[in-house]
């Protein structure tokens, strides 16, 4: 029977925490930037401008039909030949934003399409500007509708970020790999890394639930 020995893991625990902190920073930045990309693309897709819609469709199809690892290799190893050189951490952020943007766009588009045309007409009748209609009449109820799928995509983004260790970004997975290779206590290290990821997922879920309560509460009743 294999005997677990956590001493080497505890000795390198600060390393893991530094990695976890980078994972949190990367994920939060990618969630915010990715959401912005998603909203803009969803708006573009529903705007009725045909060439714009084609471009966004192409972007979504390419990203959703290729593996994330390939995308991140392309950004880190491929873009330098086109003159764009990113550090491992910024390449990781860029890849996460681009990847999330494609999935987020489709989620938000679904939300937008759930808004009845009559609502927009009502907004126009009330004399709201185009931007006001998009913000209050379309976006807010749309986001409320798709919020659960959006947050699970956010959690998925955080977990996917473990792949960025492949381009030597210093996230939690990379810290775990380093510690594992230095101590050879791979089972123990991955148990601890798994628990840290689990804690982060649960933590993010709690934050999302709080945001849901604060931002998307119906004024009347729910």
């Amino acid at each position, binding site marked *: 029977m294999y005997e677990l020995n956590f001493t080497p893991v505890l000795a390198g625990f600060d390393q893991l925490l530094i990695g976890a902190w980078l994972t949190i920073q990367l994920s939060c930045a990618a969630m915010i930037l990715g959401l912005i990309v998603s909203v803009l693309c969803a708006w573009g897709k529903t705007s009725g401008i045909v060439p714009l819609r084609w471009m966004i469709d192409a972007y979504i199809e390419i990203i959703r039909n290729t593996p994330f690892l390939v995308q991140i*290799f392309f950004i*880190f*190893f*491929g873009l*330098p*030949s086109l003159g764009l*050189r990113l550090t*491992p951490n910024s390449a990781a952020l860029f890849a996460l934003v681009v990847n999330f943007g494609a999935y987020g766009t489709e989620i938000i588009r679904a939300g937008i399409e759930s808004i009845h045309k009559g609502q927009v007409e009502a907004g126009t009748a009330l004399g709201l500007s185009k931007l006001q209609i998009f913000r209050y009449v379309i976006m807010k109820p749309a986001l409320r509708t798709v919020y659960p799928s959006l947050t699970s995509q956010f959690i998925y983004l955080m977990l996917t970020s473990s792949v960025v*260790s*492949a*381009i*030597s970004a210093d996230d939690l997975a*990379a810290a775990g*790999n*380093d510690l594992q*290779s*230095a101590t050879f206590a791979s089972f123990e290290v991955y148990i601890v890394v798994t628990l840290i990821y689990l804690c982060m997922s649960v933590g993010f879920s709690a934050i999302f639930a709080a945001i849901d309560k604060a931002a998307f509460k119906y004024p009347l009743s729910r």
Partner: protein
Amino acid sequence: MAAIGAGFVVGAMASTAVAQTVESIKSAGTVKIGMLVDFPPFGIMNTSNEPDGYDADVAKLLGKEWGVTVQIVPVTGPNRIPYLQSNQVDLLVASLGITEERAKSVDFSEPYAGISIGVFGSTDAKVSKPEDLSGKTIGVARASTQDTAVTKIAPEDATIQRFDDDASAVQALLSGQVELIGVSNVVAAQIESAAPGRFDQKLQLSQQVQGIAVRKGSDELLDAVNAFIEKAKADGELNKIHEKWLGAPLPDFVAATK
């Protein structure tokens, strides 16, 4: 379990080792040579499931030189010396690095191959000592020998980027994501063939030469092996094998030693 058992058996028989002569090999018409088959490109199993690689070619060349049939016996890292000591093989052409410790159990020929680890970078990068790595980014394969070696010598403000394997580290060098990488001469030879003339070795981190091993006290056999290696080095045959498997000429530190 069987492998461990076999290890014990051959280990126990080690004391019965007897010196070997070229005459007895030639009269038997066969030379039994132990080699690794899990150490590419030195020892591999080829597509027809036969031992192949640098070591196999050296073994075959030796057989041709002596006019005997070569019987290759696959051995593993831990059991190769016991195989030799227990007379199961006549020679080891098994990428056995020449160390003082091993020289107590076997006699080594002069080097026939070598592996070195070094820091490689663009030909115009000015790095000639470890301090020059200051402020540079160096790619390595995580947890590899070169990772340990580079980490040991790199100054505080050098950035070491750890990739999952040598291939990613090389890719990072080729795409300019890192300025330098730590790799073995085997990988460096592959870089040279992918991007000729762009990169060269900046620092040597460690080097190890490999020798053909014979049983202790087989002086006459050892002389014959050394004569073979000297001839193979002089007539370019060894160089040819090195070119074939490692894509580069025999390194100077192997060709020159002794």
